[in-house]
């Protein structure tokens, strides 16, 4: 399965949820927000939302800014 995460193409062997994706990306438990195909996926739905082939996923966090 191929998905686009933060503008970069990523290949995964198996079907997975947003929670699993965050886990694999080293972001489990971090303060991030997730958008799939320009729709926000609330934290409460990460565990049940499945990633599909071709999804455009954005994972954002807070950084220094003015």
């Amino acid at each position, binding site marked *: 399965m191929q998905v686009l995460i*933060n503008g970069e193409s990523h290949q995964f062997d198996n079907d997975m949820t947003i929670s699993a994706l965050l886990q694999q990306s080293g972001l489990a438990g971090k303060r991030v927000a997730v*958008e799939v195909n320009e729709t926000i996926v609330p934290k409460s739905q990460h565990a049940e939302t499945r990633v599909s082939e071709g999804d455009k996923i*954005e994972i954002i*966090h*807070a*950084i*220094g*800014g003015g």
Partner: protein
Amino acid sequence: MSNKDELVIAGKTYQSRLLVGSGKYKDLEETRLATEASEAEIITVAIRRTNIGQNANEPNLLDVVPPEKYTILPNTAGCFNAKDAVRTCQLARELLDGHNLVKLEVLADQKTLFPHILETLKATETLVAEGFDIMVYTNDDPIIAKQLEDMGCVAVMPLAAPIGSGLGIRNPYNILEIIENATVPIIVDAGVGTASDAAIAMELGCDGVLMNTAIAAAQDPVLMASAMKKGIQAGREAFLAGRMPKKRYASASSPIEGLIT
């Protein structure tokens, strides 16, 4: 000063009238130290993509500026149209567990970073409808400032000078006009360079000052953060005290009577 002189934004009360950004610091430790020295309670942050698969154990900004301790003010810096700004605010709200306070800035031009007023108005309309509390970055045009207030912004934040320029208040009479017309807090956002600039903004009657580069780009950011805190306090007290009128000629401080002649 009396404890009653508080800043109220969107129903929340603050003791500090200095709002600071968290950008441009050497590292997160310097961010933490400067933020603490400023005694600011509202801290702006930017919303950006995470690095996937890299630096997984790197400390996060929100670990050194925790939302439990500070009011986090996510900005829309880098957005050049209403759509991107609205999307950024929605992501910020999700990131911060439903927190509605945002700093809306829609930029028009890379060179000046002046606000794109038409897109700012468009984004304001959408964000107000979606229940956001908007602190809006704008230019020093009193008509637009009032318009943004009328549309429902909880604070209006005119620039003093271009972002990161450190030029100080370029148009004090416009800022004064904006303050006199307003019923929401007016916060000078961007352009101050040093503590006297912050004091001048407060002496004009601003409700607060938001700054980032003036602290982060100082030779000693932590010391400058402390200087800014004092500049803000001095300017506020001078405003409340009411300055003496300016006169063209001298007026002796010592009495004329009883002179030895």
